């Protein structure tokens, strides 16, 4: 409904405000096809539960903290 509504509004030369309101209420999504598409055969080697990978934060610069 949203897209039709918006296109009608454009053709009727609606105000910017009306169009922006309509866009916010009915978000317009354009479905773009991929550039190319093909199939491959894949062999599933294993199915296992993922293990946690923790990323440690950068070292805290004590000098900078004391300045703040």
């Amino acid at each position: 409904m949203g897209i039709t509504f918006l296109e009608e509004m454009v053709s009727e030369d609606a105000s910017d405000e009306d169009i922006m309101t309509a866009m916010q209420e009915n978000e317009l999504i354009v479905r773009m096809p991929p550039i190319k598409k093909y199939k491959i055969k894949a062999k599933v080697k294993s199915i296992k539960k993922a293990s946690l990978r923790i990323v440690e934060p950068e070292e805290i610069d004590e000098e900078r903290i004391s300045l703040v």
Partner: protein
Amino acid sequence: MKSAYPWYDVIDNDENLMQGDFIYECPIIIPPPNINLDEIDVDIELYNVIIMSQSCDLVNKKIDLILVCPVWLLDEFSVKNNFYKSPKGKEALRRGDSPGYHLLNKSDIDAFHTDYLVVDFHNVYGVHFDLLENIARKQEKRIRLLPPYREHLSQAFARFFMRVGLPSDIPPFK
């Protein structure tokens, strides 16, 4: 009107991956609905993409999967939708009134001539670091979006992601 800051740079393929790098014909693996220990058919779709992950995460290899979003020429994009074909639709993109899309400038620098580009935030893909790095190495050169436009792209993505739909309880002031 010429911009005060250049939008793009052409970089060599041996440089580290960074936010704002363009990767052409990036293969996106579409997982099948069911996965068993067997041979399966997998769809591969190719997209031109831009890297959305933060550069600091990439340089320090803190992530295994890099977030990318598809990029389209504005002309291709507007062919698919009449609203964006109209000057009002293009103006909405330029002003950032379409939160799911982000407009990038055209370019006439050597080795990178392009019309306006649209980044699609609705479709975000995770591509393995090693795969993306290999693809980038195979491209002789690549294009990089430069600051402050790179930060603007990142902010627009954040704005799209954090948006909240609210009821319009307060009527508009006329």
